[in-house]
């Protein structure tokens, strides 16, 4: 009863504060739109590379044919890079500049004219199993169409497609932002939002009356956590929904798994914010502490640069940060198509940190006004 009364009160207060509403409900939309605007339109062309080792007339015709091919609801291919060697093509897939590279072998034009068997290669980024499969199928279809046309004019030839699969980097530019957006919206925003919650009660002196009732610090902490969770949960659904269904950001793994891991970081961020709130004396201090707490997360959790590239000393810090586990799990699910079960360690770490934050906050919250 006491807990529900507190939750109800905090939700009401949150919803009556226009600043909160803007921060919670408008922020996902604004941030997403900004990222989409900045990082190119989603649902656009699939960037591929072509290594034309032949250079003859027929090879150029094949390339223009490829450009025309539609990638089944994914837009068309866009040759963003022309490679001159197999290695160069291989590299651009590995670096994530393109999803795939098509290799037209030396002597291609000649082999077609002579009606010989020719070997066309494709290098696929297995990080995007889903996309790779489609790209491969489109290539096969395009080649078959191309074969027909060529046969009508110059007589028959046969072809073989060999595929090379490699793992590219975690993300490519267009889809990279989802993890970052989610980090801001599910870590920084809820953390700073709730960080001022208790200091605000102190500053407005409402704390003095509140602690005259027979409530415990458990009631206060859990009441705030649940109230803010209910309100900010909208963020999780809204942002992920917008990203995937409106902006068509690729999600290879299961959407539900993404939701679960996002929910875990949300709770963890709120708990961390509550701890900050308990430790700070006033609202300004709370904001500063929240931002200060976000700096290591920004630097060392894989937010800007993959955490794997950090020095071993700094990696120890990474492993303390909830955002590190979140980003790792989130990207694994989104990009590599792993399941939540594959990321169970990260999920458990998030839960563990949440519990530690909450228990510490409950322990440290003194029901006093000094």
């Amino acid at each position, binding site marked *: *009863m*006491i807990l*529900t*009364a*507190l939750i109800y*009160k905090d939700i*009401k*207060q949150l919803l*009556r*504060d226009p600043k909160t509403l803007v921060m919670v409900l408008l922020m996902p939309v604004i941030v997403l739109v900004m990222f989409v605007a900045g990082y190119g339109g989603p649902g656009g062309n699939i960037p591929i590379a072509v290594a034309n080792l032949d250079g003859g007339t027929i090879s150029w015709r094949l390339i223009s044919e490829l450009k025309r091919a539609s990638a089944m609801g994914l837009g068309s291919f866009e040759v963003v890079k022309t490679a001159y060697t197999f290695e160069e093509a291989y590299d651009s897939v590995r670096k994530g500049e393109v999803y795939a590279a098509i290799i037209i072998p030396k002597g291609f034009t000649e082999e077609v004219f002579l009606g010989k068997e020719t070997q066309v290669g494709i290098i696929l980024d297995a990080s995007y199993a889903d996309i790779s499969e489609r790209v491969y199928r489109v290539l096969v279809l395009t080649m078959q169409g191309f074969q027909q046309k060529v046969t009508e004019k110059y007589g028959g030839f046969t072809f073989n497609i060999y595929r090379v699969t490699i793992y590219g980097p975690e993300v490519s530019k267009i889809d990279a932002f989802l993890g970052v957006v989610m980090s801001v919206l599910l870590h920084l925003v809820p953390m700073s939002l709730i960080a001022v919650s208790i200091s605000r009660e102190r500053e*407005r*002196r*409402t*704390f*003095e*009356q*509140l*602690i*005259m*009732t*027979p*409530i415990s610090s458990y009631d206060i902490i859990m009441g705030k956590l649940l109230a803010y969770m209910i309100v900010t949960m909208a963020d999780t659904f809204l942002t992920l929904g917008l990203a995937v269904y409106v902006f068509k950001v690729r999600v290879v793994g299961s959407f539900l798994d993404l939701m679960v891991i996002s929910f875990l970081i949300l709770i963890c961020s709120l708990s961390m914010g509550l701890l900050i709130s308990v430790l700070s004396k006033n609202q300004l201090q709370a904001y500063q502490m929240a931002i200060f707490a976000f700096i290591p997360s920004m630097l060392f959790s894989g937010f800007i640069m993959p955490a794997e590239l950090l020095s071993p000393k700094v990696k120890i810090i990474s492993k303390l940060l909830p955002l590190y586990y979140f980003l790792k799990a989130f990207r694994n699910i989104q990009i590599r198509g792993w399941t939540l079960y594959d990321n169970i360690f990260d999920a458990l770490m998030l839960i563990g940190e949440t519990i530690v934050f909450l228990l510490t906050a409950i322990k440290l919250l003194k*029901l*006093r*006004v*000094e």
Partner: protein
Amino acid sequence: MSLEYAVETVNLTKVFGNFKAVDNLNLKIRKGEIFGLLGPNGAGKTTTIRMILGLIKPTKGVVRVFGIQVEKERRKVLKMTGYMPQRFSLYEDLTVEENLMLYALLYGYNRREARERVKELLEELFLEEFKDRLAGNLSGGMKQRLALAVALVHKPKLVIVDEPTAGVDPPLRRYFWKYFKDLNKRGVTIIVTTHYMDEAENCDRLALIFRGRKIAEGTPLEIKRLAFGGDIIEILLEAPSPPKLEGIEGVKKILESERYNGTVSIKVLVDDASSRLISIVKRLESNGVKVVRGSQVYVGLEDAFIKLIGEQAQ
């Protein structure tokens, strides 16, 4: 430990940094009385109240409320105590009714009981018509009424109100005091601080606090006697010169005497005006002095207060 006291403080001390806000304060507030804490700004009244309620930790000393030690069993104490802080401390972004409902629920009422209790209080404190207004939009007097309602929501046996009538208009001030008296008649112990001396006269007993120390304690009458060393009477006589009063029983001191056109006006300090006035007049008349008028000089609590503080400040 005594059960006749609602509040007992023993050597209560609070030090902020190196400043002693409350200094070895011993108070014994009896069950069922209206007890006033008086003292100039910064005397330490609010700090004392906060320590009584366990809102701040005493540097030294013990507080017992109805015999229960606050530091050890604060929750037990809270259920019996209502508190109206000096400054408005309710949620300004919740309405009057929402604030009351919240507190009713936090004190453990179920929804139905809470609604009933809130309705009762809204009526008693004339808040019915403002119940849907945000607390932040209330006028000063309305805020005080709401704060009082919240302090009383769980029907506490002890109510502590810190300057409840600050910024309140005279009719409402009067109503507040009538309300306190009614509560008190129903057995509620009330501790009140105020800067209005006319209000302080309504208290059963007072403690005067100055620089964190108790400098006087007692009924308003006792405090006044303490300040001046007794009661003051004024006698107007027809005589060419002041008669000799020294040595008459009960006379402590001649404070002043003025000659004016064959009459003399004398102010005399006596131990008890009600019994001594008649005996002194009779004594003078039996000595052949013509007494025109004799009366007790009314001393306000304010004068006593200023005198006592003035003495301490030196």
